[in-house]
């Protein structure tokens, strides 16, 4: 029963939340940022920043946390083995776990606080908003970059894909 919850349900939740997190990350980077640049030209940008962005950010940041917690649940007793690279078996998932942790840090420490300033949820002067925009943008792009190896190592850490990639 323990394995059913930890490895079965835990993995299921990890993947569901992960899809929402990374899906919204790709939405921001591949859709919303270019769309906002276009919308700024015809004055329709406030519609996105007022009605779409706050909702997307809500699911984005909480999905990030749920994904990480579910991942930690799956690792269970092997959490330290993975993060400290103590056993070769856990090297691939350890790299994936570190990348995911860096991404979670970016979401909660860099992206969300700066997005609050950009969207007017927190008071900020224009120069502060400009600085926040750049930091949030680069943190989001960094996460997009990190997501590529992160997904690779998550997938390559077990099953036939691991055998194919690492022997």
């Amino acid at each position: 029963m323990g394995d059913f919850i930890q490895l079965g349900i835990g993995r299921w939740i990890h993947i569901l939340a992960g899809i929402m997190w990374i899906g919204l990350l790709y939405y921001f980077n591949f859709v919303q940022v270019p769309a906002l640049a276009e919308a700024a030209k015809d004055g329709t940008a406030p519609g996105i920043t007022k009605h779409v962005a706050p909702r997307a950010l809500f699911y984005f940041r909480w999905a990030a946390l749920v994904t990480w917690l579910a991942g930690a649940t799956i690792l269970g007793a092997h959490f330290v083995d993975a993060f400290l690279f103590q056993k070769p078996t856990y090297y691939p998932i350890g790299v994936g776990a570190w990348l995911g942790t860096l991404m979670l840090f970016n979401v909660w420490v860099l992206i969300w606080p700066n997005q609050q300033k950009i969207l007017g949820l927190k008071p900020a002067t224009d120069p502060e908003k400009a600085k926040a925009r750049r930091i949030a943008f680069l943190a989001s792009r960094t996460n997009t970059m990190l997501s590529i190896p992160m997904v690779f190592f998550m997938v390559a850490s077990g099953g036939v894909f691991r055998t194919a990639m690492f022997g």
Partner: protein
Amino acid sequence: LKFLNVAFGCDDRLVHYILGEHEVGALNSLDVDTPALLPSALRLVTLGRCRKKNLYAHGGEMKNPLDSLWGTVISGVVLTLILYNVVKFALH
């Protein structure tokens, strides 16, 4: 020659020198910090300096690959290849 001109923004005479087709003395008239004797490995360093100098001379700056979506994706793929090889090496 054209590729080096376009890709690195090098002066023609410097390109000839980098390609080993020019006398070192011919560089005197160029405002480039180049060692008198340039082994092949240093030719690459010179190319880098050349590119940087060209960018600065035109008021430009080195671009951040994360500013473009393609740059971000390519950086992610390169990082994946690096990490994959590190882990593979550690496992064997």
